[in-house]
């Protein structure tokens, strides 16, 4: 009876394991084509100083990928942050360079060096009010309260309208480029759920004040108000005054 159970178990597991192994191999091949010049042959990273200048046109200078896990690999590849043309370039959100299957393979390969898995946020479990509070405290300084993005000196904080719930949860843990990173003690998974739920809400905000003017903030709003008030004043002046002959 026990041997039957083991046989069934192996039958179920082996093709899966073999598939995972094949995926890692495919990922290794893609890695060798697209990532190796900056991140190194064994994904151990290339410090700028370790590369002779001009050697094969390689600039080097990418961090080690050991221990970053599927979480970071999935984030950088699915947002199009990686691959970068030059290592010192600021990564920007764009269409991914790889297909979904290729990303899966590369993620499997990077995950084989260890590290955290892809998070699965469940925004429906979170609370919008708590998300609003946490977003105000931790995120709005750079990303603006309407999640439309902003600036830090020397870098751009991207708008979050294109970010998926998984990517938001990943970015919170990684802190990509110059963003600070938030540990589980600072923001628990439940709190991340709430933040994701709030960010989803900002895609379709309730503008009780009326015209949102693209959520650009108080200064453009003030300019528009002055413009409208100026037009109204001219109209009133014409109404109460008399035209010169």
């Amino acid at each position: 009876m026990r041997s039957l159970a083991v046989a069934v178990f192996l039958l179920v597991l082996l093709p899966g394991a073999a598939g995972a192994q094949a995926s890692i191999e495919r990922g290794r091949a893609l890695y060798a084509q697209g990532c190796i010049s900056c991140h190194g042959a064994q994904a151990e990273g290339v410090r700028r100083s370790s590369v002779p200048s001009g050697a094969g046109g390689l600039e080097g200078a990418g961090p080690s990928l050991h221990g970053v896990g599927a979480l970071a690999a999935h984030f950088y590849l699915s947002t199009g942050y990686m691959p970068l043309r030059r290592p010192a370039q600021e990564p920007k959100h764009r269409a991914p360079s790889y297909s979904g299957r290729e990303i899966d393979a590369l993620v499997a390969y990077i995950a084989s060096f260890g590290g955290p898995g892809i998070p699965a946020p469940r925004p429906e479990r979170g609370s919008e009010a708590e998300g609003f509070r946490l977003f105000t405290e931790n995120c709005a300084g750079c990303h603006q309260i309407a999640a439309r993005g902003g600036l830090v000196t020397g870098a751009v904080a991207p708008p979050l309208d294109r970010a998926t719930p998984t990517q938001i949860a990943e970015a919170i843990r990684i802190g990509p480029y110059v963003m600070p990173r938030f540990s589980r003690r600072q923001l628990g998974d439940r709190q991340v759920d709430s933040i994701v739920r709030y960010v989803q809400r900002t895609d379709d905000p309730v503008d009780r004040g009326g015209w949102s003017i693209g959520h650009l903030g108080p200064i453009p709003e003030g300019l528009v108000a002055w413009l409208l008030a100026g037009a109204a004043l001219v109209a009133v002046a014409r109404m109460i005054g008399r035209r010169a002959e």
Partner: protein
Amino acid sequence: MMFWRLIVAGLTLLLGRGRRRAALSPGRPRPRIVPPGPPSPHAETLVLSCLLLATVAAIGFIAVFALDRLPAQTQLLGIALGLAFAFLAVATVVTGKRLVANDEISEPYPEPANEEAREEIEQIVSESTDRFTRKRLLVVAAGGAGTALGAALVVPAVSLGPLLDTRALKRSPWQAGVRLVDSLGRPLLADEIEPESLYTAFPAGAEQNQVGSPLVVVRLEPSRLDLPPERHGWAPGGIVAYSKICTHAGCAVSLYRAPLYDPTSPRPALVCPCHYSTFDPATGGGVLFGPAGRPLPQLPVRVDAHGRLVAGGGFSGSVGPSWAGVRTR
């Protein structure tokens, strides 16, 4: 007492002016230039009530501003000031349309070369307003509305800072031995401060809203620290603490530029989101960029026997925005 006498004297002067001038210029009645018009008591009453309402609205602005505890404070302030301006505008429009004669005189005014011509212009001006039946009351009402509105515009300046007691700006609850806690009062443990993360801390058991209370705490690589020699021992394990209040305009320094990978990103920096003053946490809070004129004050920290972060002394400089004089440290 003095104050009241001054007010009474001012009112007497104001109300007595017209009477005195009338007594000084007797003489033959001159023929009218401006055609006479009927007085309009209704319009005058309207103007008077508008001026009164403008006064009330402007005083209301001052009252709302002083109370400072109402649920819709900003909206009420806006409504009060807006109403004051609107009533003043209505009063002016009604005066111009219904009370002052506005018949056009086609000839250009001659140069007031002689006494005769000047008297004529004075006469035109005075006859243009002789439809008013309650001129002095109107003048007082307009003066009252103007004074109240002026006061409403000046009063918010009180919020710009303490008038005489500048010691409040330099007071800080931080001194040697005060524990660092988070916004909920939980102690900050040195082991839990991770690199590339930003923590906000407050003094245990003290008011969190004071300008000298909030801190930003970050952990840098100890080898990258380049603090002045007199700050030796202020950063155990690379943990540095600075005042969270920007030295430029007093906003919260809530941005931490934390490069994930140093060789390809800008260096770590604390950034204020209001005007992008950028401070260097590795060298003692010096200004890297932006309008701030002096470094962020640093707080020495040490780790106690239980692994908790405690202050090792007071701030390295004055906390808060640079008021006159504070700039000189």
